[in-house]
């Protein structure tokens, strides 16, 4: 691999790493929030009953 190849590989790994982690976090937060909303509904319905 040429020098430029290593340069772009480095930047590609860096940016891909950033974006991948950002996407993982956003998906995780969304999943957790929907599970929390679901459980809160269940608990609320149970309290009403």
């Amino acid at each position: 691999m040429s020098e430029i190849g290593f340069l772009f590989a480095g930047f590609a790994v860096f940016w891909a790493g950033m974006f991948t982690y950002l996407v993982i976090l956003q998906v995780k937060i969304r999943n957790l929030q929907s599970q929390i909303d679901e459980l809160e509904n269940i608990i609320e319905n149970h309290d009403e009953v």
Partner: protein
Amino acid sequence: MFLNNIYALRWKVLPPVAGVAMIGMAALALVTAPTELIEGDVQRLLYVHLPSALASYFAFTVTAVCCILFLLKRDFKWDSAAQGAAVVGLIFTLLTLITGSLWGKPIWGVYWQWDPRITTTLILFLIFSAYLIARKSSSLDSDKSARFCSIYAIIGFLDIPLIHMSVRWWRTLHPQPIIAKLNPALPDEMLLVTLFSVLAVISVAAWFITLGVETELLSQRLLKLKAIAKTNISEKS
């Protein structure tokens, strides 16, 4: 109160600031920054390698501080914050090691050198990986696990200067072939780009830490709600 207000602004301020800074950093690093005479264009990896290293130290410092606060206040939000920051620290440490290897190969001819800083970075990665493995292998609401792992993280953080010192002494005793210095005294233009890159990556790290903390806090909340739901179901039956 003032700190709470600042913290409340994190979703409005951090993402746009980090995003714009990173685009600016990419442009400066790849286009504007002058080409280094000895190492050539591959030297531009400095603008991601060094900021990643500093971002990892920043994240692990946040981890250590949150662990201290947890031990003092016994509030699980600090334990969650410590875990969130530790994950970010590990990611940036990994990026430091990878970008360092990709920079090292064309310059040194090898992907790895037992340079004190790189070796210490690898050990730092192992220490905080062990912290997360230990913490995640117990229940999130386990007070004992949170306390012990906080102690471990603090000891690990404080051990880093000793590790660096001992590896450096070890390397000077075992002479290495003369290699090109990675970053001799930087000219002003490169220094400015480096400083801007450091600020950009640290703002991204701060954003990721807030997201990571949010994830951990939501996990804690989910665990509590599951316990409540389970109690309700068993009462009903």
